[in-house]
C-alpha cells in the first residue's frame, strides 16, 4: 500500500477513535457537568429576561417581546433551580447575592477592561489604514514609494501584526477579562497586574510595528516582531493571564461554563505556541517552515477562535435570556476543536518541500474540523432559531450572530481549501487572503464588535450616545466586507487557474486580478470607514457625549470612572 494512503487512513482511524473517546467520556461526565452548567451565566431572575446594554430602551422592549414566547425555557430552569433552594426566602437572598456578585464582578474588571478595549480600538483604526494603503499599493504600485517604511512588504506586515496582536488580541483579552469574573461570580483578582500586562503588551505591539517599519523583522509570517520585542508580549501576556487563572482557581460557581473552558485553554495554549515559535536560534530551514505554520494556524485555532467562541457562547444566550441549546454539544465542540485544530498547520505547505506525512496529517485533521465546527454551528444556530427577529432589536446580537455564522463559513471553507485538489488552485493566490479575512474579520472581529457594544456600557456606566452610529458601523462593515470577500475570492480563484495553465503567461495571472484588487480596496475603504465610525462613537462614549440617560443597563459607578475622573450618570 502506498505510504501516503497508509498515513492518511491511519490518521483518519485514530481521529475517529479519539472522537468516540470524547463522546464516551462526556457520557461518563468526565469532561463537564451537563445542562445545569449552561445555566451558570444567568442569575435566577434572569431566565427569559433579555439583556443588551447596547440596545435603546425601545429596542430592549421589542427584544423582550420577541423572546417572551420562549417561557418554556425559563420555566424549566426556574423549577430546577427553585426546587434546589427549597425556601422562598433563601431564594430571595441568593437572588440579591447574585446581583451583588455581578456588580462586584463588573466593578473589579471595569478599569482594566476599559483600558484594553480602548487600546484595541486604537489598533483597529491604525491597522485598517495600514491594510487599506497596502491594498491600494497592489493596483497603484508607484504610489508613495519614496519611503522604505511605506513599501508594500513592510506595510503589509505592519497591518497583519497590528491586527493580530493589537486589535484582535487586546480585544480578546479585554472581553476575556470582563467575562471571567462574571462567569465565575468572583471579583477579578489582581486586576492591577492585568492592567500593567495589557499596557506592556500594547507597548510590545507598538515597538514591534515600528521595528517592522524600520526593516527589523524576524521574517516569518505572523511572527514578524523581533524576538527581543516578543519578550514584552510574553511578560505582558503572563501578567494578564495569571490573575485570570487565579480568579478561576478561587471561583464561586460549581460548574465551569463552556466559555471558561475555551478561555482557560486559550490562555495556556497561546504562550506555549508563541514562545516555541519565536525561540531564537532554535529553528532552521524547512523545519522552521513547519513550525511557522504549526504556529500560524494554531494562533488562529487555539487563541483567537477560543476567545471568539467563548464570547459568542456567552453573549448569544445572555442577550436572548435563554440557555444554549445543548451544553454537552458545546463541550464536544471544545475538545474536538482542541484535538483537530491543533494539527492542521501542515495544509499550509501542500506541495512544499516538507515530508508528505506532515502535509497529510494537516489535510485529514482539516477535514475532521467539520466536527467541532458543526457542533458549534448547530448549538448556536439552535439557540437563535425561531428568534431571528431578535437580531433586528439587539446591536450586540446582530454582530455576534453574524460572526458565529461566518465562523461556520470560514471553517468549512478552510476544510475544503485543505483538500489537495482545491489547494492546488488557491494556494499562492489572493483567495487565501480573502479566506484569512473571513476568519479573522468575518468571525472574530464581528464577535468582538458585538461584545464591545455589550460590555462598554457596563464599564463606563454610560449608554452608547448615538445608537444610529451602531447601525451605520454594522452596515458599513457588512457591505465593505462583502465586497472585499466576494470579489477577492473570485479574483484569487481565477488567478490560481491562470497560474495552473501552462500556456497562460504568468503576467496574465497578474493582469486579470487588477479589477478584483481594486474592488478589494473599495471594500477595505468601507470597512475602514466603519471602523472610524466605531472609534468615534467609542470615544464619544468615553467622553460622555450624548444625552444624559439612566438606562436599564446601569450598575454602580465603576472603577474605570474613578480612573478617568469622569462624571457619572446620576
Amino acid at each position, binding site marked *: 500500500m502506498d505510504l501516503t494512503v497508509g498515513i492518511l487512513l491511519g490518521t483518519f482511524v485514530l481521529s475517529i477513535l479519539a472522537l468516540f473517546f470524547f463522546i464516551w467520556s462526556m457520557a461518563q461526565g468526565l469532561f463537564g457537568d451537563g445542562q445545569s452548567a449552561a445555566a451558570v451565566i444567568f442569575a435566577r431572575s434572569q431566565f427569559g429576561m433579555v439583556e443588551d446594554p447596547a440596545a435603546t430602551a425601545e429596542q430592549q422592549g421589542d427584544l423582550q417581546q420577541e423572546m417572551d414566547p420562549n417561557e418554556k425555557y425559563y420555566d424549566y430552569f426556574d423549577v430546577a433551580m427553585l426546587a434546589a433552594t427549597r425556601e422562598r426566602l433563601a431564594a430571595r437572598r441568593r437572588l440579591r447575592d447574585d446581583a451583588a456578585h455581578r456588580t462586584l464582578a463588573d466593578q473589579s474588571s471595569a478599569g482594566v477592561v476599559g483600558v484594553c478595549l480602548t487600546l484595541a480600538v486604537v489598533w483597529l483604526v491604525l491597522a485598517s489604514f495600514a491594510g487599506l494603503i497596502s491594498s491600494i499599493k497592489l493596483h497603484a504600485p508607484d504610489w508613495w514609494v519614496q519611503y522604505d517604511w511605506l513599501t508594500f512588504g513592510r506595510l503589509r506586515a505592519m497591518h497583519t501584526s497590528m491586527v493580530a496582536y493589537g486589535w484582535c488580541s487586546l480585544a480578546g483579552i479585554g472581553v476575556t477579562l470582563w467575562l471571567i469574573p462574571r462567569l465565575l461570580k468572583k471579583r477579578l483578582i489582581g486586576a492591577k497586574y492585568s492592567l500593567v500586562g495589557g499596557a506592556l503588551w500594547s507597548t510590545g505591539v507598538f515597538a514591534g510595528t515600528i521595528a517592522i517599519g524600520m526593516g527589523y523583522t524576524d521574517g516569518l509570517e505572523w511572527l514578524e516582531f523581533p524576538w527581543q520585542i516578543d519578550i514584552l508580549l510574553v511578560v505582558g501576556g503572563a501578567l494578564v493571564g495569571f490573575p485570570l487563572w487565579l480568579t478561576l482557581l478561587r471561583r464561586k460557581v460549581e460548574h465551569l461554563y463552556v466559555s471558561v473552558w475555551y478561555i482557560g485553554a486559550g490562555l495556556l495554549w497561546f504562550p506555549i505556541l508563541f514562545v516555541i515559535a519565536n525561540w531564537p536560534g532554535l529553528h532552521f530551514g524547512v523545519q522552521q517552515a513547519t*513550525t511557522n505554520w504549526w504556529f500560524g494556524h494554531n494562533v488562529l485555532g487555539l487563541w483567537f477562535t477560543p476567545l471568539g467562541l467563548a464570547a459568542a457562547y456567552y453573549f448569544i444566550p445572555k442577550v436572548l435570556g435563554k440557555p444554549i441549546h445543548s451544553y454537552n454539544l458545546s463541550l464536544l465542540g471544545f475538545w474536538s476543536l482542541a484535538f483537530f485544530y491543533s494539527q492542521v498547520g501542515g495544509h499550509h505547505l501542500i506541495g512544499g518541500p516538507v515530508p508528505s506525512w506532515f502535509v497529510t496529517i494537516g489535510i485529514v485533521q482539516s477535514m475532521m474540523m467539520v466536527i467541532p465546527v458543526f457542533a458549534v454551528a448547530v448549538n448556536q444556530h439552535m439557540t437563535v432559531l425561531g428568534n431571528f427577529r431578535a437580531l433586528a432589536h439587539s446591536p450586540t446580537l446582530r454582530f455576534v450572530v453574524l460572526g458565529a455564522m461566518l465562523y461556520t463559513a470560514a471553517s468549512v471553507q478552510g476544510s475544503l481549501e485543505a483538500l489537495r485538489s482545491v489547494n492546488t488552485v488557491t494556494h499562492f493566490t489572493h483567495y487565501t487572503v480573502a479566506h484569512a479575512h473571513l476568519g479573522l474579520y468575518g468571525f472574530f472581529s464581528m464577535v468582538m464588535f458585538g461584545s464591545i457594544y455589550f460590555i462598554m456600557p457596563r464599564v463606563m456606566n454610560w449608554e452608547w450616545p448615538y445608537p444610529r452610529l451602531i447601525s451605520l458601523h454594522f452596515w458599513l462593515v457588512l457591505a465593505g466586507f462583502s465586497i472585499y470577500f466576494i470579489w477577492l475570492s473570485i479574483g484569487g480563484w481565477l488567478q490560481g487557474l491562470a497560474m495552473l495553465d501552462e500556456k497562460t503567461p504568468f503576467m496574465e495571472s497578474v493582469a486579470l486580478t487588477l479589477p478584483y484588487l481594486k474592488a478589494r480596496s473599495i471594500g477595505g475603504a468601507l470597512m475602514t470607514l466603519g471602523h472610524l465610525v466605531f472609534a468615534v462613537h467609542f470615544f464619544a462614549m468615553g467622553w460622555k457625549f450624548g444625552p444624559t440617560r439612566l438606562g436599564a443597563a446601569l450598575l454602580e459607578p465603576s472603577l474605570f470612572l474613578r480612573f478617568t475622573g469622569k462624571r457619572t450618570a446620576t
Partner: protein
Amino acid sequence: MSAGKSFWEMDELRLVIGAMLILGGATGILVVLPYLLLEDVRPPAGLKPYTQEQQIGRRSYIANGCMYCHSQQPRDIKQAPDFARGWGRAPVAGDYAYDTPHLLGTMRTGPDLLNIGARQPSKDWQLGHLYQPRAYVPGSIMPPYPYLFEIRQGQAQPNDTVVNLPPAFAKPGEVVVAKPEALALVAYLLALDRTYPALLPLGKADNSAEAGKDKR
C-alpha cells in the same frame, strides 16, 4: 474552587491536563518530529553557503517583505506547471540548508524566485528592475524601490555602480546609482540558483521531478 470535590474531580485539572496533552501531542508531531527528521539533512553538493554580501542582501529581502509576494518553492510538475515556467524543479529539504529564516512564502503575486539567479542572471537587469519594475516588465505591479538608489545630477563617481535603465525610463542629465543595499540584494537574488540535481533518496531512479515529489 468547588468544595467537597477531590483534586481529581476538579474541572480545572481536567482542563489543564486535557489541553496540555492535546497541544503536547500536536507539538510532538508537527514541531519535534520534523526537527528530529530534518536535523541531519546535509546541503547538496551543488549548494554553496551564502557569502557575507549575499547574507546582507537576504536580510534586505526580508526587511522589505519580498516574501509576501514571492514564493521560493516551485511545485512538482505533477501539481503545477512551475517547471515549464522556468521556475525550477521541485525542491528538497537540503536545498534550504542555509536558509534561516525560511522564505518559502505563501503568495505568488509575483513569480517564484527560488531560481531567479539562473533565470535572470543579469545584474543590470536586476538592478534596473528593482529601481523601476515597469521599465522591464510591462503590467508588473511590483513596487519600485527608489530608496535603494541615489539620483545624481550629471556625472557618476568612479566607484559608482550606475543603473542602465532602458532609454524610455532614463532621464537626461541624471544618473541612477545603486546603494550598497541594492547591490547586496541583487547579489542575493543572483545566488538563488538551485538548478543542480537534487539529492535523491537511495534506490530512487533519477529524474528531477521525481526528486521533488513529496515522498521523502
